Every structure is written in C-alpha cells, then in structure tokens.
C-alpha cells in the first residue's frame, strides 16, 4: 500500500517537475560545508524565484552520483519573516528520479508549503549530511602521524536551475590545510576556505574541487548496530545494543608503542580515540557494558533529569582500521515510553538512531520485541525504513513474541528522532507466565504428595 502511494507520488512529482523545471531560478545561494568531523554537514541557504507563468508546487535538489550514495539525510525548511521574527516551516523532501538526468545525477524533490505563484520568491534552508566522504590520504599512517583526508566536491552548486549568485564555504577542523583546488575566486582564511562568489552559472555547472586537510576527530563508525527493545508489561523496557565499532580513518601501520602512547599523548596517536559517549534516556537503570568475553570495567554513568550520559572506553584505544565489538544494555521505566492510543491500542514511543554521539552507523537494525500475545503491530516513522516481522522466544514463552524489525542503512545522529510502534495487547496475557510457574510448582507438590502415599512395592510388607 505504502509502495503504491509512493509510486503514485513519484509519478505526480515527475509530471510536476516536467512542467516546472525551467520555470524556477535561484537568486542567491550560500553553502556552508562543515568538515570538522567525519560526518560532513552542509547547510544550504537558497532564495528561489518563480519566473514562469504557472504556480510551482515544488523544486528539485541535485546531487552528483558520488555523493548520492553517501547521502544520509536531506532536510529542507522554508523561512518566512525577517531577521528576528524568523519562523521555520519544515518541508517535505523525497528522493526522486529524472529521466533526462545527466551523468546519473540524483535528485530530491522539495514540496513547497504553498505553491509558488509567478514572481514570488521563497527562502529555503536545506541541510544535508554525507557519510564516508572524507578519504584518508595517505591511507595508512604510523602512530605518530596525523591524519590527512581528502574531501571532493564542486565549487559551484550542482542544480537544474539557473543560479544568479552563489558562494561556498568549507570549514576545516584545524588551520592545517595541505592543498585545495583553486577555482577563482577562492581564498582561505584560517579554518575557512571560501569559493566564490560566482555569478550567473548555467544549470548543471560543475567545478570539481579537492580539499586536502588534517582531521583528527574520532572516525567512529559503527559497522552494524542491533538494538533490541523488549517491552515487558510488568514495568520496564529492556534495551540491548550490539555494536560492531571500527575506526574508519587512515589505517594504522606498523608499531603500536605503549610508551609513546602513554607518555606523549598529544603527538602520539592523535587520530586514535579511546573514549566514547553515549546519550541514554533519563531514569536509566541496570546499565551494563560488556563484550563476548565479559564485563568491561571502564565506564562512568552520569544520570540527569533530561538525559543520562554513559562515558565508556573500549578495551583498547582504537587506531585506524581496528575494531571493537561490545554490548550496552540498560533498562528504563515503562510508563515514560508506553502509552495508550485513543483507539485502545498501545504504542511505544522511543528514539530511533544510535545513542553514540558523532557516530555513523552503516547498518542499523532496531528490533522491538512486543510482549507475548500482542497483535497487529505497525510502526510509524518520519522516514522510510525496511520493516519486517520476526518471532523471538524468551523466558517461558510458548507461542513466541512478535518482533518488529526496522532496518536502515547510513544512519547519523540527526536520525535520533522518536518513532512509534502500535500494537494491541490484552492485559490477561500478563498472567500467563506466573500462572505457568505456579501450576508447575503445584504439580511438583502434588506429585510428591502422591509419591509419598502410593506404595509401589510388589510384595506387601
């Protein structure tokens, strides 16, 4: 059903875009790309004008094919009002395809809140996030070396529309920039490289640039994260998170020297990291941190009213290419997360994404384990994910528990937004397991009673 609607909307979008592609122009564009961590964030301010005759309902954002597969999320907002009275209105953004796309350009369709009448202008703010877009060069470094990376992009904005004026800023984490491609006018001041302003660029203009700079921020990449949220109607929510973490930066080569690492920390292993921070819900309890071979004792938990922070260290510092797997588990009270919908169904309201700060998750799987006997599960999310249903057997289960599996690739901290899982559940099922235990004990006592009173001897004494 959802797929059909999606196809329908794409068809509508195609129709609309055909009619309006050339009728828009971008008056002014400013792009600020933040390269200070390994998650590339681009803030994009556009002033769009309808120069056609018909009202335009939406516009296209174009991305080069190298970026489209690393694109983690695109958000757009319309700004109304001036300076202090600015109000932001989130807009609907959907991936779309164009039949005449040059060089496999990828597109996103932004629908305006109200169609743009001819001559009207609107200011949009777009945020997009790229992952795995910094390429370490050299790709292997020794312990004492600092990590240098390449970032490849275009000096001018790729767009199907005419852009009257545009500027692009790159913000690097430190002032150490090895090189950057010069596309006049381009200049660097401290941590900032400015390209532009460029005037009157035709649609699909492209000017590749290559920035080579130092980036020693922790390249914490979770290759796979499986979060299991188990609902118990007896009053708690048990969350178990299985991490497979790796250092996604330049690979470590050669010697690891402990003397250097512990005595000259500032220059030795500057691209490595050994501490991570996870932001957990408030009121969290029974937190544990372990791996396949036992507890890991290096962690600190700070609980607060708004959030809890778990600061922990893997067993060893992570250098480029090193891996660590671990499990974090905790429990939160049920009443903060489970609610009853007006139609009598229950729903879980929990945060999507990964609790680790500044981390990319290549593959995220969230498993919501519903109590035994629940029916008709459905998940509500603000973005598309793969959904699946499984059955899990836990303590004293007979028919098994329904598991709602949500799977999404390329997840960044911006995806940490609430999602809901709706299901129906009869409270009488809660009593099934205690009843089983009680009856088992009862049976044992009855059996021993019977055994004591029955004489099994063949010969009477």
């Amino acid at each position, binding site marked *: 059903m959802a797929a059909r609607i999606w196809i329908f909307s794409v068809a509508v979008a195609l129709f609309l875009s055909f009619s309006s592609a050339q009728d828009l122009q971008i008056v002014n564009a400013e792009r600020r790309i933040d390269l200070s961590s390994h998650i590339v964030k681009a803030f994009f301010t556009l002033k769009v004008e309808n120069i056609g005759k018909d009202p335009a309902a939406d516009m296209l954002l174009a991305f080069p094919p190298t970026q489209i597969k690393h694109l983690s999320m695109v958000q757009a907002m319309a700004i109304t009002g001036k300076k202090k009275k600015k109000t932001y209105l989130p807009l609907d953004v959907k991936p779309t395809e164009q039949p005449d796309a040059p060089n496999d350009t990828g597109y996103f369709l932004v629908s305006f809140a109200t169609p743009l009448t001819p001559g009207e202008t609107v200011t949009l703010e777009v945020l997009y996030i790229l992952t795995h877009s910094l390429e370490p060069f050299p790709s292997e470094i020794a312990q004492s070396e600092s990590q240098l990376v390449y970032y490849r992009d275009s000096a001018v904005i790729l767009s199907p529309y005419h852009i009257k004026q545009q500027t692009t800023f790159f913000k690097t984490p430190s002032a150490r920039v090895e090189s950057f491609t010069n596309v006049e006018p381009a200049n660097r001041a401290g941590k900032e490289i400015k390209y532009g302003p460029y005037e009157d660029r035709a649609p699909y203009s492209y000017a590749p640039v290559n920035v080579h700079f130092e980036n020693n921020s922790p390249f914490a990449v979770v290759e796979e994260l499986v979060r299991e949220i188990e609902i118990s109607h007896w009053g708690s929510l048990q969350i178990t998170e299985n991490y497979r973490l790796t250092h996604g930066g330049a690979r470590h080569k050669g010697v690891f020297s402990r003397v250097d690492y512990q*005595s000259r920390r500032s220059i030795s292993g500057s691209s490595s990291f050994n501490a991570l921070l996870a932001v957990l819900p408030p009121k969290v309890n029974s937190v544990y941190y372990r791996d396949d071979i*036992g507890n890991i004792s290096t962690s600190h938990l700070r609980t607060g009213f708004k959030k809890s922070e778990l600061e922990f260290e893997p067993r060893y510092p992570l250098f480029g290419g*090193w891996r660590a797997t671990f499990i974090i588990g905790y429990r939160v009270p049920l009443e903060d997360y489970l609610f009853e919908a007006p139609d009598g169904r229950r729903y879980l309201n929990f945060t999507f994404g990964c609790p680790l700060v500044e981390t990319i998750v290549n593959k995220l799987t969230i498993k919501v384990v519903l109590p035994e006997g629940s029916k008709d599960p459905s998940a509500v999310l603000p973005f598309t994910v793969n959904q699946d249903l499984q059955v899990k057997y836990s*303590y004293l289960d007979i028919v098994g528990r329904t598991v709602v599996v949500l799977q999404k690739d390329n997840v960044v901290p911006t995806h940490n937004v609430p999602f809901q899982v709706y299901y129906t559940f009869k409270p009488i099922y809660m009593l099934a397991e205690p009843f089983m235990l009680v009856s088992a004990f009862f049976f044992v006592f009855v059996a021993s009673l019977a055994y004591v009173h029955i004489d099994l001897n063949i010969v009477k004494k």
Partner: protein
Amino acid sequence: MVTKKTSPDLLNSFSFKSLKLKTKQQELLIRVSILGLVYVLAFIARLFSVLRYESMIHEFDPYFNYRTTLFLTEKGFYEFWNWFDSESWYPLGRIIGGTLYPGLMVTAALIYWALRFLRFFVHIREVCVLTAPFFASNTTIVAYFFGKEIWDTGAGLVAAALIAICPGYISRSVAGSYDNEAVAIFALLLTFYLFVKAVKTGSLSWALGSAFGYFYMVSAWGGYVFIINLIPLYVLVLLITGRYSMRLYVAYNCMYILGMLLAMQIRFVGFQHVQSGEHMGAMGVFLLMQVFYFLDWVKYKLNDTKLFQTFLKITVTSAVLVGGIALGVGTASGYISPWTGRFYSLLDPTYAKDHIPIIASVSEHQPTAWSSFMFDYHILLFLFPAGLYFCFKRLSDATIFIVMYGLTSLYFAGVMVRLILVATPAVCLISAIAVSATVKNLTSLLRTKQKIPQAGSTKGVGSSKSSSKVTLDQSQPFQKNGAIALLVGVFYLLSRYAIHCTWVTSEAYSSPSIVLAARGAHGNRIIFDDYREAYYWLRQNTPTDAKVMSWWDYGYQITAMGNRTVIVDNNTWNNTHIATVGRAMSSYEDEAYDIMRSLDVNYVLVVFGGVTGYSSDDINKFLWMVRIGGGVYPVIKEPDYLVNGEFRVDKGASPKMLNCLMYKLCYYRFGELVTEYGKPTGYDRARGVEIGNKDVKLEHLEEAYTTSNWIVRIYRVKPPTNRL
C-alpha cells in the same frame, strides 16, 4: 519459625496416641530442612566470585572446557566427538574428541538443553559458571547418605555441613571454575558411596549403580585411576583380614566388569583400561577374587582340612606365579604399558623434579606445605585423627573403607597440592564422625542425668538400674559441667571453622585470576583487566589465521578468548613442541626468529609484571622454559642464565639472559619508563631491581600491542627482508 513450633504442640495435645510418630516426623522435618539449608548454603557460598567480580570463567583449563562446551551445544554431539581442532598445537593440531574427558561438557550441555526445553533461555556461559556450585550442592547430599551409611544420620548431616563449606573443596568449585574436578568429586563420592552400599547389602542393583557412578567419573576426570586402585586395595584388605563374603564378591565383580566395559567407551581411556599398568591392580584383585571363590567351593566339597591346606598352597602359589608371569610377559612384549610419569610422581614425590620438568613446573603439582593443609582443612585436621579413632573402635566394612580412603588420599594430598581436593570428602566424613560421636556422647550424658531424677521419682527403686544410677550420681556434678564445657568447646570450634571457611572463600578462592584486583592508594579497588584486553585485541585486530606463540599457560585462554591459533597450550601432550617454544624464548633473537619462522608464528605474546608488580609473569617462569627447553635441546643450558646459581635480571645478570628473546620482549622500551616514584627508569617492580639491559633493540619483531598496564605484550614477527 513460630508456626513450626506451635503446630506440632497443638497436634500433640489433640492426639496422644501418635506421639512417637510425631517426634519421628519432626525429626524428619528437621533433617530435611537442615539438608535443604546445607544444599542452598553450599551453592551460595560459592557465589562470592560472581558478586566480587562477574559471572565469568576462571583460570586456564576452564576456558578450554568452556570452548568445547560451546562447540558441543552449537554443533551437536557427533561433531564434538569427531572434532579435530586445528586452532591449537599448530601445525600438529589436536583430536579433541579422543583426548578429553567429555563428562563435564556433556553434563553442562545437558543442563543447558534441559533448561531450554523448559523455556529458560539462559546463556551457556551462565550454565558453565554455575555447574561447579550446583554439583557441590549435590555432593553434600551424597556426603549425607555416605555418612549415614558408615555411621549414622547425625554424622551424615555433619558431613554434609562440613563438606558444603570446606575450603579444600571450595577452592575447586567456586562459580566460574568450570573444571573437570567440579563434577568429578561428586562422581567420586557417589561411586564410593554406592560401592560401600553394595558391599554392605550384597545387592546387584547397588553394584550396578556404583559401576555407572564409576563410568561417570571416568568420563569426567583422569582421577578415576584413584577409584580403580583404591577399591581393589580395599577388597584386598578385606580379603586379608578375613572379611571375604558373598556380598563383597557380588559387589566387586559386578562393579569391576561393568565399570570396565563402560569406561572403555570413553575414547580417551579405551583399551588403556585393560592394558596400562595403573589398571593392572584391579584386574589382579578380580582374578584373586575368583581364586577365593574357587577355594571356597573346593573347601566346601573337600570337607578335609589337611587336604585343603595343601590344595590351598598349590593353588595360591600357582595363581600368583601365573599372574606374575602374565604380567611380566605382558610388560616385556609391550602389551601392558608401564606406569605413566604422572603416576610415578604420585608414588615418589621427587620423581617429577628429576625426570619430567613439565609436571614439576606446575604450581599445583608441588608438594603440599603444612600451612596449606591448615588453610584448607582448619579444624578438620585435628578432628580427622579423632574420627579415625572412632572408626577403629567400631570397625565394619564401611568404616574400613572410609579409613583407607582417608589415609591414602591424605598421602596423595601431601604429594601434590591439587590432590587436597580428593582427600577433602574423606577428611570431612571422618571428621564428621568425630564431631557427631562426640556430641552424641556428650548430649546423652546430659540427657541421662536429666532423666534420672524423673525416673527415680516415678518408678522408685529398680533392682539393676539403681546400682548404675549410684555410680553415675557420684560423678554427676563434675561430669555434667565437663560435658557442657566440652559441648561449648565443640560448637566454638565449629563456628570458628565456619568463619574461617567464609573468610578463605571470599578472600582467597574467589579470584578469577584473569582479572586482577589491587587496592589503590586511597583504598579504592583497582582492576587490572589486561589479559582480556590483550585477548580481545588479538581477536579483533589480527588476521583470523594468525598463529600466536606464547608459553603454554596462556594457550587455552588465547584460543578461547582470542580465537586465534596457538602453538602450544595447557594440554601438555607434546613435550617436544613445548620444548621448542621454550627454546625459542630462551635463544637469541635471530636464532629464535628461525624457530618462529619454521613454526609459522605471526605474533608472540608474553606476560610481564614489571610495571604492576604482578609476580607470576613470564620472567619468573622463565627458568622452567629453560629447563623444559634444555630437556629436549641440549644447546639450552640452565647455568648460562644463572649467575652463581642465582637468577637475576639486573646489571649482574648473565649476558645470555640479558639478550635472550624473553628478556628482550619483556623489557623492550621498559628502560624509558618510570614505574615508581623515586626510583630510576626501568625499575622492575615485580622483582624490585633496576633492569640490566635498558637499550633493547628488536630486529625481527616489532611491538604490535601492549596493554594499558603492560601485563600482556604482543609482538608481530616481521616477514623476512627481501634478498637483493
């Protein structure tokens, strides 16, 4: 408690007729609840390690057992039985199914499967961790029945309580010490109990039970050799002391034949059971038993003492002669294998030291010090002789057995520290007899006095009783006070025992030895988790087919936690292979490099305590490596590493020592480090000296990883440089 007390009283007041029955029921209730409490106590006393640290597998061998159990539960029994493990003893490998006692793993797997069947989805690790406490609890029940069999229910209860908390047993059965002994002691005691029961009743079913108990023991632990030698010895003693009976004949023959056939099903034992020297005693006694039976029959038929005497002489001499010749021929032809070194070292404590350094190098194979007897037995050490006295006073088939078990196992406990474990049940049982008999005597003394005035007042004058009363009455005040004082003393001793056991368990025997704990400067607990840090690093950051060379102590842990192939491990079956590693460790770097290249070694792991002051590290074990290496390769000579017979690592050390691979790997770049305030750089805290070679250069190896407290250091073996 209140309800328990009042309800029988109410019942009593209602029905006077069944008064006796009610006290019996009360006694049963008390007995069952004591046993239940002891059962629970035995379990929870062993959970200190889980509370102090975590639910984890301890020490060295348990990691192998855990790994194999994991394999068994994942792949099933047949895969397990046919498992060829290429991850250990590279490049030889090891046939796991044929070289291990599967009892422990199968037990844990069965518990695991049973729990899963009952819908308890526990992790196999939890099952393994709690197997030992669970079987310790079961042992207390067996001890109760055993005590009941050899003495009375009182002794049984005391034995159960004593063995539940005896440190000698706890040391090997705390939660996490997932080793063969965990179930073996249970099996051992069960076999003995069932055999004694079989001898007492002459019942075939008890003998059958004891054969199955023996089978379980054989499947669980190599210590079964103790059973198969003690039981024949016991039978022999009974024969010599003229206690031969049909009951004994039935019990022993059934137990031996069935037990043997069952034991031969275990692949690791197989035909050894009829071919090796250790098992010949049992067979000899079995044949002797038949001779005895035959003689009995002939005696019955002949009815002539003189004729029988001559017949007896001829038969006995010819039987002994035939037996001796058979044994001689068997040994000469190699059909009967001679005794193994381990067996020799038990009979002769100095044997291992001279001939098998690999056995002598293990700390738990050292002769036992008096202090550790005191530590592990506490008051039982004094109660044991008292119990022996009581046993001799009331000699029966059962008490003869427990006396023999106690004396032989105590001898073995003196030879090897780890065999204290085998002696513990016997010591507990015999001490229980002492306690129970003493307390019983004392209380009966007190009781009779309480009854005397009653009896005197109601019955008046009796003829025979009055005289005894008079004698009792004369010593009454002194005796009564003495009895009370003695009782108080006994209970004081027992409470001291309980306190001692709890203290020992919590302080000494609950450390997993993987995780080290120390007290910080401010009294806070510092955890050194370096072993797991290193193993996990190996597991995650080395190629999956990497081969790791280390001293054999860490082999099981590396394969289980690091999941990497090792050259040697704790199953010390190939002495030459271990000697090769010992030789590599004690050679110069370039010589060692050739050895390592020939063994395809990628990583070398050493344990070093110089930074933390951890004393059981590889430098302190180094002389054993030299000895074991030198035992096979005479190029390695122990005196080269010593200076005037002294082992040193400082400036006065021998040049060979300062440049051997082990020294270099341990002290690489250690000379730059200040370990203790006010001491020079390169100060080794484990040995309390400043090291002699601070400028260690490595040519063929490079540091791959060193843990945060330097306890484990891992080096990568560089590939050979290109020839131009």
